[in-house]
């Protein structure tokens, strides 16, 4: 345990994690008689009071349907919904609110692109390039459309440390490549992929790129124009916002060319039984009553992290990742899974002779919530030759003491099983 103390350093100046924790009511509780140590943030993050208040205020004061009514509440609800879109636009630096489509989650964003862009662009013999570290949500939608269109998936291999093999990536890009779809930050390994460079590489060959930013949007600043991403998807609930709201960013030129995803109200400008004219962007992709409160809550979450400063959150989590890496490395029989040079937010590991599920149950009794399993990345687990890992994941409210509690709980695991 001395290794932990030796790397201790002052926390980020001006980043008072203790005070920030008070913004999260759920963190105050005990579980199994122990203070809750919530380290399952890659699955979902907890919500600050500002988000809970925004949801309550919306339903208490403004609730109405959007884009239709002439009455005051409908105007207020529409304003709140469109203000939320503008907040997201600024957050990711999209060129226009027309490029910000609200979805249920990142999965729906990928499915939307697969079923519209994919179905119109893919044909027999065409290829979609993904990577070996993708979440099932960035594998299955492409498999579905590829099967339908006679196209195929090509997979960028990874190193044993969990980094993409970029020379193989360049080799995979060929005359039949129609799209690259890769994860920004791996949920199972924590690897940050060099997406800006990878996008530039694809663009030199005229291939558009979708980035799955589910794990990135709450750990680092995302600038879709600087990245030059063609599509970027993320979800609200990992960004301290509510569940059921996500974002698809798409370049306007591409979104314009794409057919609608679902049909229904709000996505049309006129309907007769003979012909329907579709609505303008982004409404063309938002059929039916949207998750208005979810969008309002997401905007409150974006405002919250923006007020703290994403760069400071990144720095805090980077320091914790180094602290956790050192702490976990000291546990006998523990092996970290995912040790790429560029990492954020995720500590995935296995222990000799102890299955991850048993680790999860034992540390839960100590109040420590971690995720165990294949993390919806079964092909990655097969590549690594393991059935599952245990995963601790960080957030802006994670403390060194919580990492210490995890490490102490892992010593109890060893005690029980050896």
């Amino acid at each position, binding site marked *: 345990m001395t290794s932990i103390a030796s790397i201790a350093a002052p926390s980020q100046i001006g980043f008072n994690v203790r005070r920030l924790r008070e913004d999260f009511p759920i963190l105050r509780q005990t579980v*199994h008689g122990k203070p809750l140590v919530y380290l399952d943030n890659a699955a979902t993050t907890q919500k600050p009071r500002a988000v809970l208040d925004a949801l309550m205020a919306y339903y208490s004061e403004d609730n109405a349907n959007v884009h239709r009514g002439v009455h005051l509440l409908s105007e207020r609800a529409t304003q709140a919904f469109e203000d939320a879109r503008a907040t997201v636009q600024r957050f990711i630096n999209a060129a226009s609110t027309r490029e910000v489509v609200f979805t249920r989650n990142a999965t729906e964003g990928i499915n939307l692109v697969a079923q519209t862009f994919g179905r119109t662009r893919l044909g027999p013999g065409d290829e979609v390039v993904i990577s070996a570290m993708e979440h099932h949500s960035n594998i299955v939608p492409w498999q579905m459309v590829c099967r339908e269109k006679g196209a195929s998936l090509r997979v960028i291999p990874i190193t044993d440390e969990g980094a993409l093999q970029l020379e193989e990536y360049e080799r995979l890009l060929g005359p039949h490549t129609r799209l690259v779809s890769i994860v920004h930050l791996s949920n199972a390994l924590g690897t940050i992929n060099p997406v800006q460079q990878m996008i530039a590489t694809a663009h030199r060959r005229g291939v558009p790129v979708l980035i799955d930013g589910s794990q990135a949007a709450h750990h680092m600043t995302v600038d879709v124009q600087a990245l030059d991403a063609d599509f970027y998807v993320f979800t609200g609930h990992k960004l301290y916002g509510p569940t059921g709201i996500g974002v698809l960013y798409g370049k306007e030129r591409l979104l314009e060319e794409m057919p609608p995803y679902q049909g229904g109200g709000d996505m049309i400008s006129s309907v007769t039984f003979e012909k329907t004219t579709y609505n303008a962007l982004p409404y063309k992709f938002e059929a039916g009553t949207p998750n208005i409160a979810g969008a309002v809550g997401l905007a409150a979450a974006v405002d919250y992290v923006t007020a703290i400063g994403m760069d400071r959150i990144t720095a805090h989590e980077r320091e914790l990742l180094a602290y956790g890496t050192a702490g976990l490395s000291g546990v006998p029989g523990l092996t970290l899974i995912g040790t790429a040079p560029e990492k954020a937010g995720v500590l995935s590991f296995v222990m000799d*002779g*102890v*299955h*991850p*599920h*048993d680790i999860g*149950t*034992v540390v839960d*009794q100590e109040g420590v919530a971690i995720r*165990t*399993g*294949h993390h919806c990345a*079964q092909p990655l*687990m097969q590549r690594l030759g393991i*059935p*599952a890992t245990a995963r601790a994941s960080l957030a802006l409210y994670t403390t060194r003491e919580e990492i210490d509690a995890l490490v102490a709980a892992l010593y*109890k695991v060893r005690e*029980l*099983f050896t």
Partner: protein
Amino acid sequence: MSDLRELYQEVILDHNRRPRNFRAIESANRHAEGYNPLCGDRLSLYLKVEDGVIKDASFQGSGCAISKASASMMTDSVKGKTLSETRDMFEQFHQMVTGNADPLANPERLGKLAVFEGVRNYPARVKCASLAWHTLRSAVDAKDEVVSTEAE
């Protein structure tokens, strides 16, 4: 750790460390594959059945302490039992770990397997304990398919 000891009883930890019947049976005439999609655990079960009686039982695969110990103790306990007796044991075991039956009401029926009673307090782990038994039922019923814990 007292609560955990209720789940991880010493006999369970022992079977996890040294699983019994952890091998393939060359002359097996019943075989089934079990799969828990939630954790990716796989289990191969082998039975040698003669005249409706299980003469030998074994398993292979990877899994957590609960699933390995469950498979280990199950293969021990079904040897010498008739197929219909093992179907009955499946029901008893399943009811115990899902909390629908009190094992102390009929302690003789499950015998040593009653150590898995603590699993009922850990809902996320019930499938770990029952994977081997689902696989056994599939082998007993001679279904030629991969049985999944998500099938019911």
